[in-house]
């Protein structure tokens, strides 16, 4: 008798707990779905509106795509209605700057991190502490002096001025140094020395390949950062042939009211974010992993 009643109570307890969990799950998923819809709505509108004509855009909003996608695309590429829009040169400049910057950042940060990690030269301690300290300095502190020098030397409007500074990237250095500490035993370097390799060759042939995972992560992050960078390029670049995409978008914004074809504006936004979005969607797993490992700096 007692056994039976007890098991009924247990069953009830069990069932209640189950119901509670199900309710909690429903709430959680609803919350997640709402947030997802919120995030994606912007991109949905962006994609939908890039398929509409100027007239459609200025009349009634609809959630359905229209048929002017290619018209807008061709328009944005070849017959832009804004004097500032030149997708080809914007892409070219952005790509040159972002690609070279990220390669330089990764290579020289690794080289510097390796230099500090693997060798014991005089003053190493001070240098390591120094790099950590300068990591904290906000980048725009340099902007006034940088612009002054660039104006004086007449090197504004040149892409290399945006590229070369990326050789000194303290945050990437820090990440690489952490990675080396965790993965590269010094014996490996010694083995390479014994095998007859010189130091530079050891770095290129042994150390860099071992750092591939870290390089991949930092390559993506520095590429995205450079691709999206607006502040310094905005100050340094005035020549229409040298503008990168973010500057172009800024100019388009001040030009946007009224006279520019609306469909083209949507198309330009879409085109400028597309490369990064595609890369992101392919590599999102490792990028998200990289966020946490990179963020524990300081």
């Amino acid at each position, binding site marked *: 008798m007692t056994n039976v009643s007890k098991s009924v109570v247990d069953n009830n307890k069990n069932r209640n707990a189950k119901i509670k969990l199900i309710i909690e799950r429903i709430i959680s998923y609803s919350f997640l779905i709402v947030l997802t819809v919120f995030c994606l709505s912007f991109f949905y509108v962006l994609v939908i509106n890039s398929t509409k004509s100027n007239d459609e855009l200025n009349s009634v909003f609809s959630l359905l795509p229209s048929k002017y996608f290619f018209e807008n695309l061709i328009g944005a590429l070849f017959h832009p209605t804004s004097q500032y829009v030149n997708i080809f040169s914007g892409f070219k400049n952005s790509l040159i700057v972002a690609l070279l910057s990220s390669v330089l950042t990764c290579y020289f940060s690794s080289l510097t991190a390796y230099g500090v990690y693997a060798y014991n030269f*005089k003053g190493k301690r001070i240098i390591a502490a120094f790099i950590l300290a300068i990591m904290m300095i906000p980048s725009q502190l340099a902007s006034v002096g940088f612009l002054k020098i660039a104006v004086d030397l007449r090197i504004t409007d040149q892409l290399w001025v945006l590229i070369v500074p990326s050789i000194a990237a303290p945050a990437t250095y820090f990440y690489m140094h952490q990675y080396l500490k965790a993965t590269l035993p*010094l014996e490996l370097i010694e083995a390479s*020395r*014994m095998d*007859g390799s*010189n130091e530079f*060759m050891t770095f290129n042939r042994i150390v860099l390949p071992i750092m591939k995972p870290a390089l991949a992560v930092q390559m993506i992050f520095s590429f995205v950062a450079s691709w999206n960078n607006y502040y310094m390029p905005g100050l340094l670049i005035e020549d229409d042939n040298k503008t990168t995409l973010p500057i172009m978008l800024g100019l388009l914004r001040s030009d946007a009211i009224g006279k520019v074809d609306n469909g083209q504006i949507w198309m330009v936004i879409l085109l400028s974010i597309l490369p990064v979005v595609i890369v992101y969607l392919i590599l999102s797993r490792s990028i998200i992993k990289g966020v946490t490992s990179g963020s524990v700096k300081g």
Partner: protein
Amino acid sequence: MADVVLKDIVKIYPYLEKKEKKSIFGRKKNEEPKKKTNLQITDKGVVAVQQFNLDIKDGEFIVLVGPSGCGKSTTLRMIAGLEDITEGELFIDGQLVNAVEPKDRDIAMVFQSYALYPHMTVFDNMAYPLKIMPQEITYAFEIECINEDLKELEHDKAVLEQKGVDSAKISKVDAKIKELESRKAECEQMIAKGEISYRAKMTKKMIKHKVLKTAEMLNITEYLQRKPKALSGGQRQRVAIGRAVVRNPKALLMDEPLSNLDAKLRNKMRAEIIKLRSKINTTFIYVTHDQIEAMTLGDRIVVMKDGFIQQIGAPQDVFDHPLNKFVSGFIGTPQMNYFDGKLVKTESGYKVVIGTYEVELSKEKAERLENKMVGDKDVIIGVRPDHMSISKTGIKGVVEVSELMGTSSHLHCKIDGRDVIAIIPSHGIREEYVGRSLHLGFTGNVVHVFDKETEMNLEF
């Protein structure tokens, strides 16, 4: 093959570096060269190796042995060129190499952690040293390679002929064969002239040939395309050895190569190293803290402590005639037993006295002591456990623990507050020793007499 001579080598780690390593990237051990416990500290820094003199002969197998922190690895790393030499001179093959970089010393090293390049296959790991530096190529080796190629080409030719395809291809193959044969003749000429080798970068084919040959010798051919991650400890060990010997180094340095293996595998690899030695012609310098490895592998062993060489000699000599108390205790397991006692000169020779127990020393020992003009004195008397036996007289002790080892029993006795171990053969009879009071004795030819102050063996 080469002789290696170390002359008055000293290694001092300056303080500056040590501090630096500790304070910045705190947590990591890395370059810190082991615990320096009893090492001498001078105003220049911590002394890791002191007045190291050693003459390693061509093709010899030398083992540096000692407890951790004794400077043996530092010495090896100085020979390798990975650590600079504070004072003294190092000669390899008669040449002073103090300032020569490791890559130009023509030596190879097997690391404790194996240090295999994780991103390369076994083949690439072994090919790496051959790829990056010009190598000594013997004409005989080149002929071997050419012969191999010729065989291949002949096979190709036969296939082509069978197929009956265009003669252009066949004549191309013919031309190649001709070319190779003329090179072969050249090589043969050089050999006839008495030339043995030349220095050049190896061709891809030579590298492949060499790696395959070495891999075969070490039985790792089937793993060549694997990455180190996919290998077991013993296989990695072989690859590490393979990478070291692939370029016929003048000397092969090994830094505790077996310490990462389990006991069973260690025994097996020890035997493999002995076999390896018969297959390759080079000078071996081997570092270990394991005295069994030292005893079984070395032609000569160098016992070190606190940066000083304690004794150099053939393993059996060191075992039989330890120079001081430290060596006597370090070599041989279980450790030697020590007693406080007296050395007394008698009419016929010497005797040692422990309490009431007296043992006349053998003639041989007495003669040596005589030569040294040793008189009566308080001494430390050392006797190995294997040399202790149960006797009627002897030193009295109570057995606390008895370890049955099969063919013998290890009896742990307390005598005058010291632990004394005696190994007693069981002769097939099982006896219960624990709790029994026994008299342990020994004979006069197995006694080692050490000075009480200097702890030096009085025979030397």
